[in-house]
């Protein structure tokens, strides 16, 4: 049992010691070290007066064990437990590079420290004391209160580069050495054309070691106040996080004009995941809003944090789901139910189905040597709609594949698949229903003959590939309502797949031949370049894919894909070219370049998919960060819809960053053409003083 502090013996060590009055006190000199667990005091000279409960240390005094970091002073007078006391010319380090120094410091029994004429900064100080740290918080009096782990200031001045910028009679922030501690976080301040002036004051509340919450009321110029909250809880085998907002207000347009009716407006995001066993887990995700524009109206992002839930929502769409998924060595499975809320203005939720449920389980059996593997899988989907038909499908399939290496290095990969689907379509309002049962099968082989040429500095691989597939007919194709294979865009990854449709509802019957060549060059350790050319030819069977898939004609579009990756520069191209007209049906180019001081990414997209009517067909987006001098750099991004000649998003800003602070001033303009919200422009400034916190808009 640890001896109580005041009984703990004191170890003293010195070059020379004198005692006073026969052992009632001592004066030690010559790199004196006094230690009373847990604290140690080093000094040139120490006077120890046990009867007066006083220890006086002079000259290069260092106090260790009083916190994570040593504390320095010219002269210190402490009680004999080395706890409470006074120090002259005091300085200490705090966690996360925080530094505090003072003319005089008084430490009380519970470890609280009161400093007079003190300052606090997280910036490195020059050894010779020359020059000013980027920022420093100077105060007449600073109290580091150990009980509530806060640091309080009186007559505080925030100096930026030595120039007083802010004055506050009283100021406080959490002690950076404290791990988790309730307290006010930096307020969020901003102004927007819609909401007017905004002030949001978050309060961080550590409920218990395994849960905490943030409560942030927000007051705004043009609208009623809103309350925003976050809650997190860690369980033994999982976690849960929730966040949400609530207000009672009219609808407002982009100039802050009220209209519509005053009603409750709220949103809730969140999710959780728990491990059932090392392989399987279950979880939920919740995303709901009172009305389509609530999130945008109050500048909340419409995209919730990704917490690992399997069903990722599309843009302007919220999904609430419950799921069980997992994988073992040879099997993987997923079961999920999900309900969607679309925020997009042109679609209503009644026709949007909920997944009730979708399920998938596959197990892979290893066949005897040389005979590859057999994958058996079960897949089902049930879609329920308020308006429109319900869709039920259940499928069982067996998929065999192996790989043989023939003499002369020819690789032959034969494969075969058998599958049976059971469908049921029902439209309650219309009173119609239909069920279809079909069995399908295919067989084929991929044959490739890769060649390798090692060079001193460039190794090359050239791999011609040819794939033949013969699939059974599908008489019932007309009766199947296609729900899961609505958009196909032929590319390198799809060309040689036995089943090229993303789902089950479309089956490519008949025979087809696909061929292509893949060339890869490597040099140095990481540089490489790659080129792929390929095409697919339908020998017989029906054209099951639509015009924009590149697979409608018997001769498919040419598939062209390439990439190059040299130190600092990388580019990737993926394209489909019409065999007759030679014009590009789809082009997706991304370029990236980075070197010290400058980095940029550019992406150009040109899709001609007729039945994708939502997003832009031609778009260019780019972002860059350019270092101007030392700590200053310019940042920017742009996303422009070339068809409608509208710049959807653009940001341009200046950033100052050094070891202890980061200032961003960013002009942001969004024109997403959302009903009556119109384009919104805002100037945002984000100030982050490391260890103190940051001031930035949501």
């Amino acid at each position, binding site marked *: 049992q640890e001896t109580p502090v*005041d*009984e*703990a*013996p*004191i*170890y*003293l*060590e*010195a*070059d*020379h*010691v*004198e*005692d*006073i*009055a*026969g*052992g*009632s006190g*001592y004066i*030690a*000199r*010559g790199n004196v070290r006094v230690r*009373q667990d847990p604290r140690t005091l080093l000094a040139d000279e120490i006077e*120890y007066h*046990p*009867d007066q*409960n006083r220890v006086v240390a002079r000259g290069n005094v260092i106090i260790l064990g009083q916190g994570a970091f040593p504390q320095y002073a010219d002269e210190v007078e402490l009680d*004999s*437990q080395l706890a409470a006391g006074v120090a002259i010319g005091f300085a200490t380090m705090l966690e996360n590079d925080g530094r505090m120094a003072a003319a005089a410091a008084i430490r009380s029994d519970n470890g609280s420290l009161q400093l007079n004429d003190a300052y606090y900064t997280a910036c490195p100080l020059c050894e010779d004391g020359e020059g000013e740290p980027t920022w420093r918080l100077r105060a007449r009096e600073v109290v580091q209160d150990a009980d509530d782990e806060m640091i309080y200031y009186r007559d505080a001045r925030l100096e930026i580069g030595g120039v007083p910028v802010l004055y506050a009679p009283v100021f406080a922030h959490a002690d950076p050495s404290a791990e988790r501690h309730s307290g006010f976080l930096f307020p969020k301040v901003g102004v927007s054309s819609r909401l007017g002036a905004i002030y949001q004051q978050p309060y961080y509340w550590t409920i218990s070691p395994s849960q905490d919450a943030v409560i942030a009321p927000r007051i705004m110029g043009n609208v009623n106040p809103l309350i925003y909250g976050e809650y997190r809880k860690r369980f033994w085998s999982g976690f849960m996080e929730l966040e949400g907002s609530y207000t009672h207000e009219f609808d407002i347009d982009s100039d802050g004009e009220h209209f519509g009716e005053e009603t409750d407006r709220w949103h809730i995001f969140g999710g959780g995941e728990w491990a059932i066993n090392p392989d399987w887990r279950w979880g939920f995700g919740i995303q709901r809003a009172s009305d389509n524009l609530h999130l945008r109206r109050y500048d909340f992002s419409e995209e919730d944090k990704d917490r690992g839930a399997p069903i990722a929502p599309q843009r302007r769409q919220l999904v609430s789901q419950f799921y069980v998924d997992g994988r073992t060595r040879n099997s993987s499975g997923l079961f999920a139910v999900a309900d969607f809320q679309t925020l997009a203005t042109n679609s209503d939720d009644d026709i949007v189905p909920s997944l009730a449920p979708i399920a998938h389980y596959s197990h892979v059996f290893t066949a005897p040597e040389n005979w590859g593997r057999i994958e058996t899988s079960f897949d089902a989907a049930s879609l329920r709609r308020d308006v429109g038909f319900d869709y039920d499908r259940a499928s069982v399939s067996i998929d065999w594949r192996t790989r043989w290496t023939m003499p002369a290095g020819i690789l032959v990969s034969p494969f075969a698949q058998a599958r049976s689907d059971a469908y049921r379509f029902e439209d309650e309002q219309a009173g119609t229903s239909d069920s279809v049962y079909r069995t399908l099968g295919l067989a084929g082989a991929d044959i490739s003959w890769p060649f390798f040429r090692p060079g001193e500095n460039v190794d090359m691989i050239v791999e011609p590939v040819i794939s033949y597939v013969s699939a059974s007919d599908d008489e019932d194709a007309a009766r199947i309502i296609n729900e899961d294979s609505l958009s196909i865009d032929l590319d390198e990854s799809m060309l040689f797949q036995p089943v090229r449709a993303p789902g089950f509802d479309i089956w490519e019957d008949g025979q087809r031949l696909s061929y292509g060549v893949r060339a890869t060059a490597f040099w140095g350790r990481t540089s490489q370049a790659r080129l792929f050319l390929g095409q697919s030819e339908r020998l017989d069977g029906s054209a099951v894919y639509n015009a924009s898939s590149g697979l409608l004609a018997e001769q498919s579009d040419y598939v062209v894909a390439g990439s190059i990756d040299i130190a600092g520069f990388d580019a990737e191209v993926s394209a489909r070219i019409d065999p007759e007209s030679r014009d590009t049906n789809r082009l997706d180019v991304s370029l990236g370049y980075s070197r010290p001081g400058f980095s940029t990414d550019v992406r150009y997209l040109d899709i001609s998919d007729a039945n994708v009517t939502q997003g832009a067909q031609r778009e260019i987006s780019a972002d860059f960060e350019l270092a101007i001098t030392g700590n200053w750099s310019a940042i920017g991004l742009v996303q422009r819809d070339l068809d409608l000649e509208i710049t959807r998003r653009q940001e341009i800003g200046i950033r100052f960053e050094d070891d202890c602070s980061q200032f961003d001033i960013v002009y942001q303009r969004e024109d997403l053409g959302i009903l009556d919200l119109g384009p919104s422009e805002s100037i945002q400034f984000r100030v982050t003083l490391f260890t103190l916190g940051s001031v930035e808009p949501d």
Partner: protein
Amino acid sequence: QIGNSSLPLDIEAETFEVLDAERHIVWLGNVHVVQGDSSLQADRMDVYYTGEGPGGGWGDIDRIVATDNVFYITPAQRARGDRGVYELAEEVITLTGDVVITQGDNVITTTRFVNNLTTGNSNFGEAGTGERVRMVLQPARSTDTTESSEAAETPEG
């Protein structure tokens, strides 16, 4: 005089040898010098007197040199060393070698211990020798500090 100078000084030992010319007596075997409540013990003590020249008297004891298992015990402390020199004129006792001193609950180890009998102050260690003075101090019990500090504790054994 190793304690209170006015008290008589008794010396006992198993044997002693008088070297008249040097005014020097050698005491051997469990030598005890007692004065009042303080005592000096050692396996051998060489006692030198102030007397000079043939025919003069022995005078007073000038100094005592104690060697091997030297113990110096007073009400306030017990000190032990390899060699001890007691200068009567300056009333200073110096213990050297492997010195261990206990003062109440405090234990001090050093290579040199000088105790001034009139002032009662002691000095431990010598700066610059590279040797260190090491002390283990029991902080005065909070209850003790209330009593006056003069209540010297009686040394054990």
